[in-house]
């Protein structure tokens, strides 16, 4: 009980400290967009501050590379060895907010065994916000007339301040460099 209280105090203290430090100029949280998660909760994108996380973008009706993106994120998270450090969060944001509603995302998370935490599946409030988020993350995508998307497939590591600490376009297998970057970033927190 004492430890729990102490932990809570520490958390509160940490939250306070974060609020007082100005956000770095290069932080992707400088972008003001809203996310809606698989539970239907709305969050400012910048609320992800404080978490070390892997971020990628996908869409649920994609049958080709997107499942591999999810698998590679899983594989990567399992390979990370960082005892005693903060947990690694995993965030997937949809390119396709029109079709990927909260319930579609929730079903997808269940079907693909993506428990929350560490996973969050989210959509933006509008296609324009999805384009902005992709732009700040340096991802490219294009909607085709049949509703499918062509898109770049990358995993992006964000540090707690929202700076891009590493990125990899190795999909379908583990990228050891990327795993090391995650371990280093977690150790720095």
């Amino acid at each position, binding site marked *: 009980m004492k430890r729990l209280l102490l932990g809570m105090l520490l958390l509160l203290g940490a939250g306070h400290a974060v609020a007082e430090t100005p*956000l*770095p*100029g*290069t*932080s*992707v949280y*400088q*972008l003001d967009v809203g996310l809606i998660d698989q539970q239907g909760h709305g969050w400012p994108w910048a609320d992800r501050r404080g978490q070390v996380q892997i971020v990628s973008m996908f869409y649920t009706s*994609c049958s*080709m*590379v*997107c499942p*591999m*993106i999810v698998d590679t994120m899983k594989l990567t998270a399992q390979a990370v060895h960082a005892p005693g450090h903060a947990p690694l969060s995993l965030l997937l944001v949809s390119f396709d907010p029109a079709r990927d509603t909260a319930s579609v995302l929730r079903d997808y998370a269940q079907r693909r065994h993506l428990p929350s935490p560490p996973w969050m599946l989210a959509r933006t409030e509008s296609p*324009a916000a999805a*384009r*902005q988020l*992709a*732009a*700040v993350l*340096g*991802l*490219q*995508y*294009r*909607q*085709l*007339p*049949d509703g*499918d*998307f*062509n*898109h*770049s*497939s*990358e995993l992006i590591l964000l540090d707690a301040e929202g700076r891009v600490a590493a990125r990899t*376009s*190795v*999909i*379908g297998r583990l990228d050891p460099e990327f795993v090391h970057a995650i371990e280093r970033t977690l150790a720095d927190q």
Partner: protein
Amino acid sequence: MRAVLLIAGLLAGLSAAAADYAPLPAAVFNSVLPADGKSAPARMAPFAMRVEPVTNDEYLAFVQTHPAWRKGNVPAALADAGYLSHWNSASVLGSHALPEQPVTRVSWFAAQAFCESEQARLPTWYEWEYAAAADSTRTDARADAQWRERVLDWYGRPSSTTLADIGGDANVYGVRDLNGLVWEWVDDFNALLVSADSRDQNGADTTKFCGAGAATLQQKENYATLMRVAMLSALKASDTTRALGFRCVRTL
């Protein structure tokens, strides 16, 4: 009497400040980027386009009412260090940024914010390409080798050439300076060359892109437009360059 004068003054101020937009009709347009990555034309809904690129003067008025976008206030994630670097200061243009020159050294995020401030948005690539295919008498001048040559000439000029003022010849829709003045941001700059259906490829990049239709470029003789696509798709949203400006559109 003073009230009347004041109102007249306000109205004059308004009409000077409000940018002109020209309507463009719905169309089926053969882009250099087929909509399905193979050969499908783009289906264009009607829209209105700013007849001129945004000028330094107009952008200055914008940053005065939107301080978050003043030079020095914008975080690096949204605009790189070159943002408005040719301006004298956050509120003074100076001799390297004349009022009637198109504003340049603005990022995609900044251009978006400006367009939003006049209830508009950045054009899509298709909208831009469709408007820019017209000359003063034809809605689509691209089959004319001389027209293509003239457009291409601009791309061959050294980048150190001083930017001209806005006010080139109007095309058939009344839109000016699409070709021959500056590069212009489009909303989907990061969607243009998402290519290569990687399932058919071997090697390290096999899964870099995912998707059913690979982007292929059409109209290989239209080098100028292809160069524009290549340049735009090489940009990051926070990039600013000396010859990259923008204009806005509104959905009709």
